[in-house]
């Protein structure tokens, strides 16, 4: 089930890694027909874990990798060799029928394939082209190679994440890919609307680094305003104290707490059974609590260690204090609030059966939400593209397959 907002919009996706595929998923979820174009040579099977095929389904490990299924849900798949002249011509004919072409190849590869915006515009004047380079299509780092975590490092995010006495840190898996993917989806939708109203297509350049650096403004400004280099601050907060992650009963169990006001601090002191601490002048205001943060952390943790994360969360939330158990992924998926929001959408894959996918963070009254469907099996749109969209005869299609330009299974 998908939204209808991008109904009748066709997107051709020539992407690798993560950011481009994420953008394609969001556009598919919003109702676009997204055709992912992949080389017939096949794909990396280096992906963690794969479920077995369901009964009666063919055993195609390449259709069951975690990465591929996460990053291409809701899309169709055309397996096409763009390096072959006939393959490139098929792509160009497909561009005539498309609204958007999205790529995140390195700038060199796009030039070599001869499919840059200037070329595609000759074929379809109002085409919208999107590039998602790591650092942009100009500047000294234009041709640098990098993946998500490398961009996180150059944006300042790694330097700023972690403990003051520890190494720079990486937020979860990586940040900039999902951020750039969604920013691209937003911009593409805006560009489609602009084209609908004016007939004008355009070229969109989304440098992953620049999307990510929208987050770094406070640290940059502190250098300019105060010649002060922001360092890592762990779990602390510059306007709230105490804030932290505290050990709970059990192995590797934690609760996160933010005390926003003096009143919330007094409530917490009473909860931990230390009314004398609530009156302690050292902790009475924010400045004092920042200064004595370590002492407070010990007091709070002595108490949280007697509780499970859920118990600690419940009792603090009951007193109006922001607190949350640190959930494992499996716990988050069965959490009542995620269940209530139907954050996971179950879709049926023809070779693996039914699996959940996470969707974007919004729900809407008119159901402009959802997950468009499972990831495609290898080459599942070959026939649709060649027969229905481009009117190739059976013979011509067979010839393309014989030449390895199109394939229904990986050729490697």
């Amino acid at each position, binding site marked *: 089930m998908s*939204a209808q907002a991008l109904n009748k919009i066709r997107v051709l996706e020539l992407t690798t890694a993560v950011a481009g595929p*994420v953008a394609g998923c969001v556009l598919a979820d*919003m109702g676009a027909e997204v055709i992912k174009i992949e080389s017939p040579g096949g794909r990396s099977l280096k992906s*963690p*874990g794969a*479920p077995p095929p369901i009964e009666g389904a063919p055993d195609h490990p390449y259709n069951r990798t*975690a*990465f591929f299924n996460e990053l291409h849900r809701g899309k169709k798949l055309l397996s096409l060799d763009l390096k072959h002249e006939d393959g490139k011509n098929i792509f160009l004919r497909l561009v005539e029928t498309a609204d958007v072409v999205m790529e995140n190849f390195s700038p060199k590869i796009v030039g070599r394939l001869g499919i840059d915006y200037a070329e595609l515009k000759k074929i379809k004047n109002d085409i919208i082209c999107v590039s998602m380079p790591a*650092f942009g299509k100009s*500047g000294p780092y234009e041709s*640098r190679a990098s*993946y998500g975590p490398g961009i996180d*490092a150059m944006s300042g995010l*790694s330097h*700023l994440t972690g403990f003051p006495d*520890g190494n720079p*840190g990486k937020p979860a*898996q990586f940040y900039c890919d999902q951020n750039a993917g*969604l*920013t691209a989806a*937003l*911009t593409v939708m805006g560009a489609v609307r*602009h084209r*609908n109203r004016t007939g*004008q297509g*355009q070229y*969109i*350049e989304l*440098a992953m680094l*620049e*999307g990510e*650096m*929208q987050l770094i*403004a*406070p*640290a*940059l*400004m502190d250098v300019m*305003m105060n010649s002060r*280099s922001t360092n890592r601050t762990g*779990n602390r907060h510059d*306007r709230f104290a105490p804030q932290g*992650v505290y050990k709970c009963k059990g192995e590797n169990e*934690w609760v*996160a707490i*933010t005390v926003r006001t003096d009143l919330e601090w007094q409530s917490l002191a009473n909860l931990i059974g230390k009314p004398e601490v609530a009156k302690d002048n050292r902790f009475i205001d924010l400045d004092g609590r920042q200064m004595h943060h370590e002492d407070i952390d010990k007091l709070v943790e002595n108490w949280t260690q007697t509780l499970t994360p859920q118990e600690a969360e419940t009792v603090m*939330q009951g007193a109006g*204090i*922001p*607190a*949350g*158990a640190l959930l494992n992924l499996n716990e988050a*998926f069965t959490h009542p*609030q*995620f269940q209530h929001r139907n954050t996971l959408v179950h879709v049926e894959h023809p070779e693996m059966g039914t699996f959940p996918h*996470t969707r*974007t*963070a*919004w729900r809407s009254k008119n159901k*402009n939400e959802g997950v468009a469907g499972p990831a495609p099996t290898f080459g599942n749109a070959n026939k649709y593209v060649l027969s229905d969209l481009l009117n190739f005869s059976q013979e011509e299609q067979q010839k393309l397959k014989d030449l390895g330009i199109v394939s229904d299974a990986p050729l490697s």
Partner: protein
Amino acid sequence: MTEQAHETKSPAILEGIRVVDLTTGSFNYAGRLLAGLGAEVIKIESTEGDPLRHWGPFRDDKKDIETGGRHLHLDAGKRSIGIDLDSLEGQTLAKNIIGNCDVVLESFEPGYLETAGLSFESLTSSHTDLIMVSMSHFGQSGPYKDYHGSEIVDVAIGGYLRLTGEPDREPVKPYDDLVIQHTALHAATAAVVGIMHRDNTGEGDWFDVAAIDAALFLIGGPTQSYFFNGKVAQRNGNRLLFTEPQYLYPSTIRPCLDGYVHAHGNNRNQDLLAVLMPDIGLEPLFDTPMGNADKIDELMDLWLSTRDKFEVVRLAQELRLPFTEVLTPEEILRDPHLEERGFLVNLEHPLEPNLLQPGHAALMSETPWINRRAPLIGEHTDEILQTLLGIDEEERAELRDKGVIE
């Protein structure tokens, strides 16, 4: 108004769309994005100003509600009107302004707008094609709707916090309001989805955006792999979260002579790493790179310890190894790449005339990205009341005397 360097002939993508922004804190990023794409964004804030204005950094640490760093960045491109939303007259003014707008962004605690007479139902009784985007920590309904959130609490419940940090220490939150700002990106996207839905059908819509969902969305890969093989990812320092021995390594951050580098193997040609760092015994470790991660670190560290980060990255990139420098904020401000691209911009704020801040989130060949300075409190109150609602000077003076507007 400064625009990107590109010569542009057309109006901005969202020109003609009018947005009322009632958000606070880092949720303000949604309005900033829509303003960047050319929407007219009217920030309705309290007569004392949005609490965001009290967030630093401030020059010389002197608090000034016009010049807080986060406000200057997240409110860039907006117009400001100060209205007391606790007063009945203020609520009526807000409702009438919204009556002239396409989109409302808000981040109040769920249920607050109803008490202020501004619920989606009451707003749409006369304005049926309104698009409203509500942001919150946990969502507008459900068992946790009234729970109290914060960045660190949202990332805790969203499953994100456990995945960040070193395995032998407590989990650590990502910098600043990363997930709340990401929630605002979802909200801006939802607003444009709503606009396109309205173009197609004439209908409005109400979007309910939750920070805990944004946290889960950000996790990406480890989520799907759990569904497929039941393995629950755990924080792994700067290494990737998939720990099977055959998995890619290095992808990590290591110390070098003058700081840190992000070190990353080449997916297709792991041996290139041994070309970069020859004769130190790396080759035999690449059969199971992740399984040998500790040993690889040990060997790499020796090589890295005598070289500075810019040299390491230059040598690695010559081999197409995706190494990068872990840059500090000062280094970013001196970075030749960002300078050549004109990414950091001076928006010529009258009270901060020499400050650079992040500019475009995207560049477009035919339509501009709009960079315009953040507004002073109530800078556009008179203009908005006059032009949108026809409230004249005399009436405005009366409203000011009563403290309804600022």
